[in-house]
């Protein structure tokens, strides 16, 4: 698979490009219908499939990737890769029969915590909006920085955060645990074992969790980087603590040599297409197919351990 040959991908990385318009055009070019949701100053893009794809007996799986990027960065891995992996999925699902219960949201203002509070993050408003629209029947699976590597990483940060917080209702903690459990099984099934659970920098999962809806983030890393980071966490327990203070300084607080190279290369001019790996796109396609087939019960708090 040639990443540069994905229609519209290279243009999406260009500086100054209108990424919303470009995204909508890419979806339209593949025959996928989308609409823009204006929520709390952010413009999110929602892709819903035909009504027959949905059932009320299970949770709707909302797959999320932010389409904005850090100023000055080309944003190839953060987060154009995930955006186009979901665009490709949308194209595959648009005519698929059966009740897969999947919808896709491309979010705006993910990088907001750098400029203000977590509540400024686009996904926080999105969660509030979703709660109004679909009550509590959705769960969110966030893809962020998924364009490089061969190892799935399920982020432990959101769950760690709510477990530490006494303000979070226990029922919500159990729901989040249920979602993690389901995803951990899927990763074990999808990756022939190449999946780890590690704390990661926050993504849209932060805003959504604070908005009161269950969310989990998935990222990808090269195996050496993923294990290297995992081993450093074992050596230095304080490193894990750093992820429990969600703000723009999360990465900056950490010793540079402790972080995976992939994370060090985002949020800057080095986040170009040359960092991406074809294997990551193939692995994500396989995982997304499993997620499509995955069933999420309404009562996430009762998912068996």
């Amino acid at each position, binding site marked *: 698979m040639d990443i540069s040959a994905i229609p519209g991908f290279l243009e999406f990385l260009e500086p100054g490009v209108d990424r919303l318009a470009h995204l909508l055009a890419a979806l339209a070019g593949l025959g996928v219908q989308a609409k823009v949701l204006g929520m709390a100053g952010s413009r999110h893009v929602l892709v819903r499939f035909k009504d027959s794809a949905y059932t009320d007996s299970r949770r709707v799986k909302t797959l999320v990737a932010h389409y904005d990027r850090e100023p000055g960065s080309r944003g190839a891995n953060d987060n154009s890769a995930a955006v186009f992996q979901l665009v490709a999925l949308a194209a595959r699902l648009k005519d698929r029969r059966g009740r897969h219960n999947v919808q896709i949201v491309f979010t705006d203002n993910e990088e907001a915590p750098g400029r203000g509070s977590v509540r400024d993050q686009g996904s926080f408003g999105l969660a509030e909006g979703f709660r109004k629209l679909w009550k509590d029947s959705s769960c969110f699976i966030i893809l962020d920085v998924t364009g490089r590597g061969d190892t799935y990483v399920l982020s432990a940060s959101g769950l760690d955060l709510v477990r530490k917080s006494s303000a979070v209702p226990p029922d919500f903690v159990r729901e989040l645990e249920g979602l993690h459990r389901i995803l951990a099984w899927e990763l074990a*099934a999808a990756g022939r074992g190449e999946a780890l659970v590690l704390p990661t920098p926050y993504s849209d999962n932060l805003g959504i969790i604070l908005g009161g809806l269950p969310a989990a983030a998935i990222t990808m890393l090269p195996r050496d980087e993923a294990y290297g980071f995992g081993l450093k966490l074992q050596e230095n327990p304080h490193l894990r603590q750093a992820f429990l203070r969600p703000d723009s300084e999360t990465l900056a607080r950490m010793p540079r040599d402790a972080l995976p190279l992939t994370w060090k290369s985002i949020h800057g001019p080095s986040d170009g297409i040359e960092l991406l790996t074809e294997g990551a796109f193939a692995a994500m396609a396989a995982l997304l197919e499993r997620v499509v087939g995955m069933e999420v019960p309404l009562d996430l708090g009762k998912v068996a351990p």
Partner: protein
Amino acid sequence: MSRAEELARELIEGDKRAKRLFLDAGQLRAGGDRVQAFMLQATQSAGGLLPDLLSYFELLYALVKGTDRFPFDAEYLLSTPRGELILDAYGNAAGQVPAGADLLPGPEAPGDGDAPGFMLDGLDSVEAEPISGLFRAFAEGRINKLCCRAFAEAPARLAGPWKLELLRSFYTASGSARWIPPVDDIAAAERRLAKLPDAQRFRDQALRAMADAGKMGFCPAQYLRRVLIPLLDASPGDYAAFERSSSAVADCFLSVCAEMGPDGDGSANNLFTLKALIAPLAALGSRLSLPGWRDDPAMPSMEEVLFSLGRRWAALFKKRHPFTRELLRSYADHFLAGIARIETPREVLRQGLRLLEHVEFVSGRALTDADFQRFRKPLHARGVRLLLARAERDARYANLLRVLQKHFDTVERLVLAAEAKAIRERRAPGRYSPFSSPEYLSYLRFFAAGSFATPGDIEVFFDVLHGLRGAREGDTDDMVSIVLENAKDPAERADLIAFLKECPVFDRAVYAAWRGRSESGRSELVEGIRGRLRAYLEDPLASTAHPELPGLDDRLEIAFIKQLVRSAQLTKPRVEEILVSGAVRGDDPVPPELAQGKRFHVRERAPSGEEEGGGKNAHRDFLRARLALLKEAIDSATDADWWRPRAKALLAAAGERSAALAELSRQTEALIAQAPEGERAALERKRRGLEEQGAGFRAAASFLRSVAGPGEEPPEVPLKAAALALACDKTIAKARFPDAFLFLLALGLGEEAADALASEPFATIAEADPQAPFLGFALVAAMREASTTFVRQAVAGFFEGPFKAMPPSYQAQARAMVAAAAGSPEDNNDAMLADLAYRRYGAQAANHFLDRELDSLGGPSGGRASREILLVAGKRRLDQFYGFVGELCIAQHVQELRRRDFFPVRIVDLASGRLVGYVHLFVYQARIGLRQLKLAVLGGVEPKSSWLAYVDEVDFHCGVRRAAVEWARALGASMLCSATGAVAMSNCMQLSRAMQVDIEGKPLVEPEKPLSFPQGYWTLSPLAVLWSATSGPRGG
């Protein structure tokens, strides 16, 4: 009762030991009330119950109990932090002196002009003192408590014949606190003399000799035990012979003392000369101790032999080389005993002088700790011990002496050669050691293993060693052993050496077949064997049949297994013994899916900086300390007496810490009184904590004392075990970690492990210099493996050996201490306790640093060369050694191979063709919740840690996991799971850490019936799901 007296009573009642003593005193037949009054008064006067004071009370109690009389002039001197406090119990405690009281005359001032010196007239000039003289002598440090008690409690039947009153007076007037009690040895002598008509003459002569020895500074009891009793045994009932020989030995003492002067070794209070020079010559069986030889005009006189040796001995010690004594102990002294036993006095003299010359040769070169360690005395001592045992068994001492003479010559030759080489290479003094040449080390390994039965064997050894130059590296020792065992004449040796250099395995029949062929036939045969060895390793179904070696399939398989199984826990003869005596093999064949090997590549680490010696160690001080510990541990494993002084040191450490904590507690108490109200509670908590800690130490120390008993040489096994229990005590271990660590190694390791420690890859540890500026990758990797393998083995060995030998009551206490140290419940089984203790000493304390060091020395592995690895399951005879190859503590559980659910998977390094470990794979049906599932479980991934150090552990783990997933799929398993405990996952901590990263956050399952491996020992539950064929369980 006055307030002060009340306070004293409270103090006594508040101290368990004092309270018990007080109550016991009340039960005495006579004088008990006076003892109690004394205790109260003394406590009151001293202002507290100081440890010294309690000792006095015990002494007083023992005296009164033994004599039924209170010593009214009891007087003692106490050392306290506030200075010296003298209490006169006569005036202050005991009241008026009753009529007839046993009074001690005041000390007499020495007269002017008295010349120092003594008369060798036995007890003739000793004046009897009352028993209370013990108090003053004790206070002034001339006698210890054990001696006091022994004299007080001596049986009446000995008192008269052995003039104990005079002997006691001699002890109190001229003794030393280091002297041991004589009563037990007197009883032993009495058993020999009781029925003799002229027994009293013997006793008088013995007492005379004992007292004269005492005047020369030697302990009379030791003299009786080591010299006089053997002389009594040498000439039973012959007074004339006894008198002559004991006089001659006494003369020799005098000579040595005169030669060496007051400061030299062997002077006053020094037992060493007595033990190492005199006792061997006078020992039972020594020809010097036989009656009649002295009258033979052809023989040199006893005086001549003893005096000449004495002079040479003194001259040797006058050189003041630091390790002279160490060299003699348990090594050279055996030689002396040997020559005394069989040689004529003329030869005793000649060879004794040669021995002392050799000791001087070595001690003159081993002037530093590092050089002395390289000399490796424990290996010399071990070889001598084996030779001695053989000589005693066969009653052939001549051979022992001939081999030892050759040994001395060989050591000197090798050392001189190393020195000559260093001079040729212009190496500066201090930059090399004459004791570290490869030949010297190789020779020593064989010497220590008892390989040389005759001097000729040593010559053959060097012939073989030279013949095998350029042969397979790392196998040289094995090949030398084979040649020494199998080829007697030189022509056959040459053939066998050629065969070994060519053929990867050895079997006599194969060798015979090879020998009978032409040159080209030999090559073909060996090529065929090579191919079959490789096939045997890589294919669990491959046949070992060789068309040119009909009927030798079985022998060939044994030879293959011996070659493939490399374990520090097993020698090759032991492997063969296991195979021949009934090997275990799996009853069921390996499923075809598992017999299909999986190959993958792992990246190599390329150690940096080692060659140039310019590398840097990240934890240099730690590495040096660790290296020194391991070296000492290796020595201790071969040194029978290593543990004894350390046990005493631990005991002393417990005492010191206890006293320090008591003092801190007292200071804190004083602070509480002055502190503001708000701070008192916190200070009081601190004080209680200190008290508790102190109580822990006291308990540990009293445990050791209770096991050890009051004697000089307590029973060995309980003392070892108790010392280990003390070493494991949490607080002591913190303070004296090295001792505790070494105890684990020294007490738990068996002879085979000691052999292994002296061989590859651990030999590099013994040869390394802890002060070297840089410790390279290979050395650190070997240290890492030694830490893992031997600490674990030693802890398990402790439970198998010393622990089981203890009486049940001590077992309970020792278990409680080890459990407390390991942070484990006491009801854990021994294997679990051992493992927890291992983690405390091995993994947590050291392996972390060693891993990090290996990481930094190994450098990044990305982009470097890779090795191909093969994983293949097997259930053949080879595979029963799965635990040995992986260096596991469960290695003995070979019967697990018969389990239908267990598949040992060989880890084969295809680059070297070596078997480097095993993966423990389980495939079985399990019930999880309501579902019946087929599970594949990784119950341990166990490569050799010394091998793993050279490859990328993450690569290796991922390769194993991928292969296991493929097997699980092929076998129709629903999921692949991993054990979750760090040690259950892998003994290699590096690998275990990588696996821990993998299982973190993964779904966990708990089968209804947990997997147990080995059966009944460990439970593998819960299991982490690494791969699943389906989505997980759903709720809602």
